[in-house]
């Protein structure tokens, strides 16, 4: 059989972001897949020379527009750890609420794009329609839809009134009901199962060996969720990581679907337990030292390494994003599948290219 090399991307209708795959196919069956990156690289980590450590909060928010709040939270936690700042308890709870809101909107966005990847446009529209309710909450509580910019070193910039918290709860009850209505379509529909079950399998051992993170790892049956470490106020909330068993595209979509409900539940718990008081403390001095912080992004574990030398600019910032850890999975998943399955399998790891390339 003749070997053919097919370039896939960087501009492709299925991908919202530029990623290039060089696919070697034999008779429509993929033999090898090689990803090529670098279309979105901005060199953001080197901006520590130009902006001081307070201004860097706004820069790291723009690593990725989808999970910008969680990037800023991770960065602020790192600086707070170096400078030994005690963040007020109310600010910790507010961080939980906003970070879980961005998880809900990211997962709904992904569920829509995933439906689009196998050609189910109606489902794509339904998920995005529900997502607009979460965007409304973002806009009402922070003033912006996507990059919410609420974090600051030493707490959060904005407070929420008790009426707002109640309104969020009623909005989310609505979201929960509407997402649950789409569950049977996504998880039991015959045509969707034909496209997702048994596609792109990563076994439990292989997932561990490759060092995968987030829902991609949990769908293979490994219970690893960085939120269990108890950063922000997660140590006071009650939850268990959502697990899948088969490690295929179906299991990954199921894990993300159930995590939407988990996040709604976590926000409900946080709203019930939130204490009163300050939301931000004044920060004096400059950071000196180095640290590593980890948080759970919608796509998995996010790691920040920060080295500060006591001047107003940081010495070094290093960001390891979840998609960077999950791309090796693509290389092992794709061989053996049909060329027409490529969009579904690539999207199943929820690639965020602008995170990966920074």
């Amino acid at each position, binding site marked *: 059989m003749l070997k053919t090399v097919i370039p896939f991307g960087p501009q492709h209708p299925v991908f*919202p972001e530029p990623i290039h795959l060089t696919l070697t196919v034999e008779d429509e069956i993929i033999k090898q897949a090689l990803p090529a990156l670098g279309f*979105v690289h901005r060199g953001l980590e*080197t901006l520590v020379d130009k902006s001081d450590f307070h201004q860097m909060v706004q820069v790291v928010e723009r690593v990725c527009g989808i999970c*910008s709040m969680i990037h800023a939270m991770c960065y602020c936690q790192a600086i707070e750890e170096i400078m030994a700042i005690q963040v007020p308890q109310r600010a910790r709870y507010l961080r939980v609420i906003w970070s879980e809101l961005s998880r809900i909107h990211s997962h709904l966005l992904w569920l829509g794009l995933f439906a689009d990847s196998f050609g189910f446009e109606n489902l794509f529209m339904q998920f*995005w329609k529900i997502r607009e309710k979460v*965007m409304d909450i973002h806009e009402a509580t922070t003033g912006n839809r996507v990059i919410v910019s609420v974090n600051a070193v030493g707490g959060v910039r904005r407070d929420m009134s008790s009426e707002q918290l109640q309104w969020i709860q009623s909005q989310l009850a609505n979201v929960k009901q509407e997402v649950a209505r789409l569950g049977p379509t996504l998880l039991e529909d015959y045509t969707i199962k034909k496209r997702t079950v048994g596609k792109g399998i990563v076994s439990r051992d292989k997932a561990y060996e490759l060092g995968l993170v987030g829902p991609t790892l949990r769908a293979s049956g490994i219970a690893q969720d960085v939120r269990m470490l108890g950063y922000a106020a997660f140590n006071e909330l009650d939850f268990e990581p959502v697990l899948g068993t088969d490690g295929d595209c179906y299991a990954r979509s199921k894990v993300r679907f159930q995590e939407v409900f988990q996040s709604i539940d976590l926000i409900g718990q946080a709203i019930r337990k939130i204490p009163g008081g300050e939301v931000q403390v004044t920060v004096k001095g400059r950071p000196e030292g180095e640290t590593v912080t980890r948080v759970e992004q919608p796509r998995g574990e996010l790691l920040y390494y920060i080295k500060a030398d006591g001047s107003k600019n940081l010495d070094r910032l290093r960001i390891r994003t979840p998609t960077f850890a999950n791309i090796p999975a693509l290389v092992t998943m794709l061989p053996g599948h049909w060329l027409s399955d490529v969009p579904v399998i690539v999207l199943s790891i929820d690639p*965020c290219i602008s995170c990966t390339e920074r």
Partner: protein
Amino acid sequence: MFKHSLQKAQIKSPWLLHYDCGSCNGCDIEVLACLTPVYDIERIGIINVGNPMHADILLVTGTVNPRNKTVLLNLYDQMPQPKVIVAIGSCALSGGIFRQAYNVLGGIDKILPVDVYVPGCPAKPETIIDGVVMALERFSQKKW
């Protein structure tokens, strides 16, 4: 006569091509949100296409870097005349918060002639739709 009717069709139902240059995704998901039920630009005849040869309007988000510059130029060259470019978001306008980063050449207008600038970080769906409507007015001024 032919040109006249073609121009009329383009203004009534323009087809969009969206390319993410070096954006943070913020503007891209807002462009996608324009297509979904709450904003729904398809009701006024605007369709998002994947093939540059089908497109009338090029929506570009994000900064230009040496690697995606060639991709952007290729897409632009493949689009049929007359064509309009809409730059979306602070990064596409000037480089935005990344303008000082080493791998950023600047805004889209360093590479291509931009017709409409849509501000915002990220630009809201309403602003993006407004920008596209302004781009439609530019068609009547285009020579081809």
